[in-house]
């Protein structure tokens, strides 16, 4: 029976668990419940990926109404792959959160944290799986509202202004998406993405469609923090509780990147977006500016969480860069980086959260001498940091490798060189932290009180991610296979778009 509903389960499980978590109240059982439901969702998304890899596309008609009339969930390799990353990270973060939030969130709000986390997971899964443009907006708002909650849960007052700014920007983004979807609907009469794709052909070169596309792309760009629209991200990630930063940095923006890919590839034709509208040039320039400007900003920050936040903006630049190359390898690099970046940023934010747990500060000064006092945490930070830089035998290397290959395939020597130069900037900002941890003496106050290693419940998920960083850096079969299948499917899909019209009718 469950086989039949496989596509719906990763959304429904956290969605149903959220209200129950809310009633359960404050106890360790709430944590156990939330974690196990997230693990269950992760289990099913694993199955979903396996099913998508073997059968191709899965379609699930909600309410039993056939697609353009009802809402459809549409699973292919691409979104199943991202979903797996999201639900895995969610589970690991929840394991990590139990001890982490003790220090950062008031005890009375713990059950609210778990509820909001599950809602966020449900929203993100919904955004990934749905095949309906308006349903996407609804789940986007579910995840956004949960995200604002999560960010504002921290005890630092600056989290409030960060959350407010995030809320305003996020709502503008969502409203832009709403306008765009409205324009598409106005010209086609449908909301189902596949159906949209087949009907947009009919109205080729319509100004309304192009405007709608522009609004959707700008709206999604706000959500994914593409360079000039990224201003909400650094404060939000800096002042949010560590567990939340770890979860959001590794999932929320990635899902938005996927949404953008999905709109470009399955709704608008890729030839139209990239060859006629020249979106690839705009995206490429913005991506490169994002990489350098944000990496540079990251270097001069003193708060390590801000460093990582700006680094996230830069890494999003890499993902968009892969997309803007418009080739199977480039898209594959984007997908691999979506997955890999989740692994590295998750581990990095967890390590920083662990430092906050023991030291009570995330300023770079607080890291001095931690290499000896918290060896496991700092080792995790170092390995994940090396991965961000792109050192061989880590996942970061694999992403960069594919990205450079994709650039070279099209003889974009400059871009390949720029990608490598971007890595050098990463060396600086990660290097500063590592230097402070291993080569500087602890400050007076810190030397006195003995700083111990964090509890094993925080270390385990951190190290799982670190080991995954190494494992997927050595054995790339899963990531490359899934990413390759995903991007090939998306490209082949665009050629089919013209013939699909008969299929729908």
């Amino acid at each position, binding site marked *: 029976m469950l086989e039949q509903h496989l596509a719906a389960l990763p959304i429904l499980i956290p969605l149903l668990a959220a209200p129950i978590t809310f009633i359960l109240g404050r106890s360790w059982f709430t944590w156990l419940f939330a974690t196990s439901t997230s693990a269950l969702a992760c289990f099913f998304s694993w199955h979903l990926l396996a099913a998508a890899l073997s059968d191709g596309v899965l379609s699930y008609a909600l309410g039993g109404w056939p697609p353009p009339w009802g809402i459809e969930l549409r699973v292919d390799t691409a979104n199943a792959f991202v979903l797996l990353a999201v639900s895995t990270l969610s589970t690991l973060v929840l394991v990590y959160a139990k001890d982490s939030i003790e220090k950062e969130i008031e005890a009375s709000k713990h059950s609210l944290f778990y509820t909001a986390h599950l809602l966020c997971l449900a929203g993100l899964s919904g955004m990934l799986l749905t095949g309906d443009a*308006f349903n996407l*907006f*609804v789940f986007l*708002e579910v995840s956004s*509202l949960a995200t*604002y*909650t999560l960010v*504002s849960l921290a005890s630092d*007052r*600056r989290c*409030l*202004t960060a*959350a*407010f700014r995030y*809320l*305003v920007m996020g*709502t*503008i983004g*969502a*409203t832009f998406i*709403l*306008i765009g979807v*409205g324009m598409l*609907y*106005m010209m086609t009469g449908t*909301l189902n993405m596949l159906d949209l794709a087949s009907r947009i052909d009919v109205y080729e070169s319509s100004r309304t469609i192009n405007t709608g596309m522009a609004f959707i792309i700008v709206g999604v760009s706000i959500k994914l923090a593409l360079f000039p629209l990224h201003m909400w991200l650094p404060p939000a990630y800096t002042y949010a509780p560590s567990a939340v930063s770890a979860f959001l940095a590794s999932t929320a923006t990635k899902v938005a990147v996927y949404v953008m890919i999905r709109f470009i590839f399955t709704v608008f034709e890729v030839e139209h977006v990239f060859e006629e509208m020249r979106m690839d040039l705009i995206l490429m320039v913005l991506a490169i500016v994002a990489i350098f400007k944000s990496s540079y900003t990251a270097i001069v920050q003193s708060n390590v969480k801000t460093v990582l936040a700006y680094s996230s903006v830069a890494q999003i630049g890499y993902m968009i860069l892969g997309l803007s190359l418009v080739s199977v390898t480039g898209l594959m690099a984007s997908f691999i980086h979506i997955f890999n970046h989740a692994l590295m940023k998750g581990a990095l934010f967890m390590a920083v959260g662990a430092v906050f747990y023991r030291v009570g500060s995330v300023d770079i000064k607080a890291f001095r001498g931690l290499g000896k006092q918290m060896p496991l945490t700092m080792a995790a930070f170092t390995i994940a940091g090396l991965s961000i830089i792109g050192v061989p035998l880590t996942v970061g290397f694999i992403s960069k490798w594919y990205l450079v290959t994709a650039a070279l395939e099209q003889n974009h020597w400059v871009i390949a060189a720029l990608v490598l130069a971007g890595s050098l900037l990463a060396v600086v900002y990660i290097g500063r932290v590592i230097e402070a941890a291993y080569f500087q003496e602890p400050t007076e106050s810190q030397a006195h009180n003995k700083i111990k290693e964090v509890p094993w419940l925080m270390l385990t998920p951190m190290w799982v991610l670190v080991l995954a960083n190494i494992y997927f850096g050595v054995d790339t079969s899963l990531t490359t296979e899934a990413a390759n299948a995903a991007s090939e499917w998306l490209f082949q899909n665009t050629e089919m778009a013209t013939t699909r019209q008969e299929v729908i009718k």
Partner: protein
Amino acid sequence: MNFILDHYNYWITIILMMAGFYIVISANNLVKKIVGLNVFQVSVFLLYITMGKVSGGTAPIVVDGATQYSNPLPHVLILTAIVVGVATTAVGLALIVRIKGAYGTVEENEFKDQDDAI
């Protein structure tokens, strides 16, 4: 002339949207920002409802003698969107109340100054 008559509805809606959008990005006071956000969203709802209207049609509730009904789908979408809008508004206002408690002001430049001072 006909073109204007057939499109003026859209244009007024767009003016409204931009009025709301302008309030959001230019206002310094957070409460006014939220009001602007609402104006912006309501105008987008108007755009949707405008496209659902059929001349000579009637509300999509079955009634004897009616032949033309307006399109019910935009109505459904906007019902959902209104709810989403009020949810966002509530969260935004709650954040404002907390910001007032933490900073003593709801003017954006003032609490920015306070943060920079630290």
